[in-house]
């Protein structure tokens, strides 16, 4: 009765990637069903998660070899190893008098998740080999926990990596590297999901912004011309703000705010969550907090005048008026964003052409558009809003954007 490989293995190893050194008898007898095999254990495992899509596993084993030709059998039943990605490297002998080893060929049996390396050894002894392969279903994702200080000028940002092991393989004491931050040594069991704290950034200065942008966020109340005013925490990924060592990967951010009492921890409240986009160094991660209720912006197009230039060619002069009230007890800086294609579509049919524009004299924003944040198509202005009075009354601030859309037809 032939003995199959699976009968020789302890059950725990059945579903796992295994490596078997089959002592050479004669090359042609290598495929016979009766075999004597050794089961070299993993000496070291590294899981490299630095690639965006693929997970690279590297493992080292000490394989006993006899002088001459040896068959080294590697199988990965029920796991998603891409067989063509397997790299087999002999690192040299394990200890004194270790043999020199050459890899002669690799054979792939039919209908089996396995391969057989044919290696030649100069002498009998043990060799340390490293096998690297791309493993499927061992995936990572990132998420963050942000706890804002009570005054909302800074936050503590914790970055976590969630490692999902559905690869049908367990890794004892595996070195795990996310591609940045420190390296971990972890036990990763079958079907386990592990959440690892990668780094904690203390007191990261943030900016809380209030924005109105009709193209993106629309009106809160159209009949009353009230714009929606979304709030964001803006985290700048640079050294000045205690970050900037690496890009921040995409992930969900849960946002909390510390309480105001003696024990801020106790009063911590959940503010909401948002998807943090992939943020390269020096870029901003904007976290949406919801709509501000106490900053009211009414937007109307006060003037819309068409002037014929020639034939069917026109200039169109517009004045957009913003009436702004801040009912908060502290001053606020409001970002007003106008997408000019969107603005044009409000007053004339869209012709798809680029918007050529010119600011007019009646524009009230003293410093003009914010150069850093404005482009040919979208202008950003800032409005400083004073705090509401003690009686709760807000001062009404009026701003105007005077703009001429030129050469339209």
């Amino acid at each position, binding site marked *: 009765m032939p003995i199959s490989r699976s009968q020789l293995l302890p059950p725990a190893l059945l579903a796992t990637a295994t490596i078997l050194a089959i002592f050479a008898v004669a090359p042609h007898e290598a*495929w016979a069903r009766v075999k004597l095999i050794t089961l070299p254990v993993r000496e070291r495992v590294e899981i490299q998660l630095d690639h965006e899509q693929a997970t690279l596993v590297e493992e080292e084993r000490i394989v006993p070899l006899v002088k001459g030709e040896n068959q080294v059998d590697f199988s990965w039943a029920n796991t998603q190893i891409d067989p063509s990605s397997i790299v087999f490297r002999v690192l040299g002998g394990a200890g004194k008098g270790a043999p020199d080893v050459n890899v002669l060929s690799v054979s792939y049996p039919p209908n089996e998740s396995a391969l057989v390396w044919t290696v030649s050894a100069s002498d009998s002894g043990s060799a340390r080999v490293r096998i690297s392969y791309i493993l499927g279903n061992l995936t990572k994702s990132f998420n963050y926990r942000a706890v804002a200080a009570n005054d909302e000028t800074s936050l503590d940002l914790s970055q976590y990596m969630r490692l999902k092991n559905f690869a049908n393989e367990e890794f004892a004491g595996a070195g795990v590297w996310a591609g940045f931050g420190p390296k971990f040594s972890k036990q990763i069991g079958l079907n386990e999901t592990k959440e690892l704290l990668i780094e904690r950034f203390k007191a990261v200065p943030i900016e809380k912004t209030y924005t109105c942008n009709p193209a993106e966020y629309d009106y809160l109340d159209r009949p009353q011309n009230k714009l929606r005013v979304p709030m964001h925490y803006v985290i700048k990924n640079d050294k000045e703000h205690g970050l900037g060592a690496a890009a921040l990967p995409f992930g969900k951010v849960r946002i909390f705010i510390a309480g105001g009492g003696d024990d801020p921890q106790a009063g911590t409240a959940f503010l909401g969550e948002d998807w943090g986009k992939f943020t390269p160094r020096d870029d901003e991660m904007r976290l949406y907090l919801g709509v501000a209720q106490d900053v009211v912006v009414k937007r109307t197009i006060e003037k819309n005048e068409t002037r014929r230039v020639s034939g069917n060619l026109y200039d169109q002069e517009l004045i957009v008026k913003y009436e702004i009230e801040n009912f908060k007890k502290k001053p606020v800086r409001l970002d007003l964003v106008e997408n000019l294609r969107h603005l044009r579509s409000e007053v004339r049919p869209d012709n798809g052409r680029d918007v050529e524009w010119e600011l007019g004299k009646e524009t009230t924003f003293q410093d003009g558009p914010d150069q850093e944040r404005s482009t040919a198509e979208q202008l950003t202005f800032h409005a400083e809003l004073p705090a509401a009075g003690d009686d709760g009354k807000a001062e009404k601030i009026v701003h105007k954007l005077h703009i001429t859309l030129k050469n339209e037809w």
Partner: protein
Amino acid sequence: MVNLMGALFAPLDWSLKRPVRTLAQVWINRTPLRIKLTMNTNMTHSSFSLFRTASFAAIFATIAIVIAPRKTQAENVDLSTVPARDSVQLTIYNSEDITLVRETRVVSFKKGLNPLQFSWANTQIDPSSVELTILKPADKLELLDTTFPHDKPQMLYWNVQSEVDVEATIQITYFTSGITWSADYTAIAAGDESMLDLEGFVRITNNSGEEYENAQVRLVVGTINLVEKIAQLAQIPMSQVNEMEELKRKDLKSRATRELFFKSDALAMDAAGPRGSGGEMGVPLEEAKQIVKEGLSEYFIYTVAGTETIPTGWSKRLRSFEADDAPLKIEYRYRPREYGEQLVRMYLLANDEKSNLGTSPLPDGVVRVFRDNGRDGLSYLAQQTIKYVPIGDKIELNLGVDPEVVFELVKTRAAREEIWTKIHGTDKFKLVGDDARREEENATVVGWNDRLSYQQRIRNYTAQPINVEIRRPYEGHVTFESGLEPKLHDFQTVELTAQVEPGVKKNLDFTVVQHLGRNAKQNNVTLEASNK
């Protein structure tokens, strides 16, 4: 069990036909080969009915030589010998599913007529391609005819006339499908990315249904023209093959291909060296097999040293070359037509001697790129299919987007100029200018220029200076204004290059003037210097 029985007993067809086991022992094969040469000692064409009774025969292919006097139809007792393969050579293409098999066998012929039977059931052989050649002594033996029996599609008979009793070497050639080979590569860059180790492999897969033991293996790089698929031809009887269209063309093509193979004979034989797999027990450190590369006409032939046995269903991967420390250049490229709308990082090297390469072209194949991660391990970078790389040509490996380099294009200004109108009902055109303001004529805009200013922002967070090459294609009539010394890659593609030091943000300003409507007089890009 089957394997062992195969070595000791005759295959099923023979044991049913007659007690030939003692003879069969002469022909010892470890595995049940499906293609065989047998020499039937007393078979005549009239005794084909014997074969019909053996429905099993399907599994084993044989050639039989008749020795004894001819029998009558009533006689079912038969005697055959089964000459073993003496040598076998496989020439495998990667561009088509075709392999030329050339095998030699030593057969004893008696003086007079010698019938031979050859069959190949359950294999992928093209029946129209099977040919018998008498190698030695060619002048004493003559192939009289070839017969394809109507009821056995994967079988044929040859009649050989011999002038003497002689031991002859014959060669049988045929095309089979199901044996394929492909190339693949593993590239491991050094930690500092100044060098790269490139290893090339060939992987041979045998799904032909036949095990060719100790075969000399030759791999052909290059494309050939086939008018019919071998796998298709293998599935139909010879009678239908003859009715197929363009048979003559195909036949000519086969002959031409064959000639090519034979021309390369001496070369291949030299390269292959002595026979035998060489993997004997107790041999000290054995080197991986050499794969000898030789050019031939428009083709390149890789010959694997020694011989190989690849059981059916298996595949085997051998190293074809190894180049250590090939110098490596890194370039960042924006070429939307080739790599999509993204800046990609490239490894550039050359298939030449300086790179310890250049001994052969690199056939199409998948390259897997790793990098030494400096922590005693590898980082996986990318996987990419490369197209055939001739000797001396560049090898370009696309590693995808580098998160450490930020690349964005911002439109900073849009304006229209040189606006022409056409006055209705006339052939008159008017340039719109200050003097033309407030004209109330009925006129329509028919031509204008869009002047669009852009800023290409590049931020380099890597530890090294980077070289960036940007190719932007523009449709229509365009004037490209820039002080960045742009070049035209082709009539409609502008190429800009820049070096960005580590930690630096670089802004490249340029203006694109698109001539539209009646202003479009050309379909090309003109470069103009600008102060910006």
